[in-house]
């Protein structure tokens, strides 16, 4: 996909299965371009694209009637009531008047804005407006909803509620979801599938289990104890004495070199002997952050 001067997407071939897919990537990596292509708002310079079995370049209108879209920008008509906003856009997507009217109320109830649905958008908080955006996306019974950073500007409590609603939309109503986000922990928690872009190129694609899972070795975080100042050093010493690789950063030890089960037993024995206090113990897991900081950081100018 070629813009006048910048190559926004470069020989991208990606297939997005059903379920909740996370689209991650640096600013300017091509996420919004990919979303615009999927909605038929942009035409690819070369290559082909098919969404829900339709070609966005030729049957864009029919496709956009079946896709719910939540834009990134948080700008709304202030004096329009939330209910009218959702009902109107449902009508524009082809639903008859009374169907749009009842579905608008249903969707606003589902996102937890049942009582506030007749309030003007201008009087609503950022959190409530993000939920109106989601209600608008699901009101016209789409087969796919595309959400551009749906939790942007939400505080942690609001973010949890929004993520739970998104999961519910897929699990209970069978609507597939594609969401872009900068908070990788969110994507790890909610998405079954991830597409990672950098500089318009595909950097990683796969199910969440493949991308972020156990990657060998264990991590043991201890707590400094005033009455046993050397407890952490003792644990580290006794473990390395057993011939395993121990890397320490602060109060956390990363241990490799044996199958995980043996490492766990070794860890338990060392901690018991030193009388140390465990704060966390677990397999060393690769996170999206590692994927992100790996190739994507090199690609970063």
């Amino acid at each position: 996909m070629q813009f006048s001067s910048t190559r926004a997407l470069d020989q991208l071939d990606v297939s997005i299965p059903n379920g909740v897919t996370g689209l991650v990537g640096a600013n300017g990596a091509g996420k919004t371009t990919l979303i615009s292509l999927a909605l038929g708002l942009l035409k690819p310079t070369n290559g082909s694209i098919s969404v829900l079995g339709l070609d966005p370049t030729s049957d864009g209108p029919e496709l956009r009637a079946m896709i719910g879209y939540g834009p990134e920008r948080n700008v709304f008509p202030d004096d329009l009531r939330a209910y009218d906003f959702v009902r109107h856009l449902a009508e524009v997507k082809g639903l008859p008047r009374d169907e749009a009217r009842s579905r608008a109320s249903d969707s606003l109830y589902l996102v937890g804005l049942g009582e506030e649905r007749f309030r003007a958008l201008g009087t609503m908080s950022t959190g409530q407006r993000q939920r109106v955006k989601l209600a608008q996306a699901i009101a016209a019974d789409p087969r796919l909803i595309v959400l551009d950073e749906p939790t942007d500007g939400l505080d942690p409590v609001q973010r949890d509620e929004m993520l739970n609603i998104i999961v519910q939309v897929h699990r209970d109503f069978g609507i597939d979801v594609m969401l872009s986000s900068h908070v990788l922990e969110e994507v790890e928690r909610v998405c079954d599938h991830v597409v990672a872009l950098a500089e318009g190129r595909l950097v990683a694609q796969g199910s969440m289990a493949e991308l972020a899972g156990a990657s060998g070795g264990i991590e043991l975080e201890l707590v400094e104890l005033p009455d046993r100042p050397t407890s952490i050093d003792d644990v580290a010493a006794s473990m390395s004495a057993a011939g395993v690789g121990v890397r320490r950063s602060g109060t956390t030890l990363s241990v490799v070199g044996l199958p995980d089960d043996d490492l766990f037993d070794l860890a338990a024995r060392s901690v018991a002997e030193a009388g140390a206090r465990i704060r966390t113990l677990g397999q060393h897991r690769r996170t999206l952050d590692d994927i992100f900081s790996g190739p994507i950081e090199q690609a970063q100018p």
Partner: protein
Amino acid sequence: MSGRGDAQIVERGFQRYEGRRSGVPGAIRSVSWESIKATLGLGRPARTKIFPVIAVVIAYLPAVVFVGVAVLIPGDILQPEEVADYPGYYGFIILAIVLFAALVAPEVLVSDRRNGMLAMYLSTPLDRRTYLAAKAVAVITTLGLVTLGPPLLLLIGYTVEGAGPDGIDGWLWTLVRIVLSGMAISAALAAVSMAASSLTDRRAFAAIGIVLLVLASPILAAALVEGADLSPSLRLIDISTMPFELVFRIFDQPGNFPELSTWSVLASNIVWTLGGVVVVWWRYSKLVIAR
């Protein structure tokens, strides 16, 4: 007492919609209707109804008066033509039409760009072309309220009073002429006001631009034709007089500028209308929509 076992919990939450979707035509219809409601302030706080009400009152008052006079005064002391013929009527209500034109297009076009609705609309079956078509329908229809309504009221009034045009074909022919004139004026003013509304992001500037354009062009035309007595055809550049001149020609009356040929008047109207459309399309095709 055992229950009859027919209890059930109705899962009312979220049903699939398998019915027919009305596609792009339906989308255009609902966007137009929403815009018309917005300009007339329907379903919105009272203060947004002030200007539309004023404009409508100004437009219909003279018609009501004329019909009233024609009905109340027995016999035919006043010939309907003397009271007000259809083309002449517009002279009374040009202020209402201009006020409405300066109000409708900025409300219908500018606010969508500022409040994010344009980005939302473009994620529906609409694209820029069909979106602008919907908005054009809304502007022309709303303007029709003040360009088509009053003369129709006149026609009905006279017909009821028996002073209407004679014979069915005469009546029908007059009706056709009224509709043609109303549409011609609405189309020209709609195109020009939408063009002004696509050039600026501030509704106030767009409204001022339209009012100044409509007030300034007759001054300019008069200055060129009378002041410097250049060729009278320069009057054709006057956007606020030409549509109404065309109405005279539709009712095959000489109008205020008989020296101008009907074709040139028609051509001027078409140029203004198409010019407006071109400006709107040029601006909207270049517009980068921040999603």
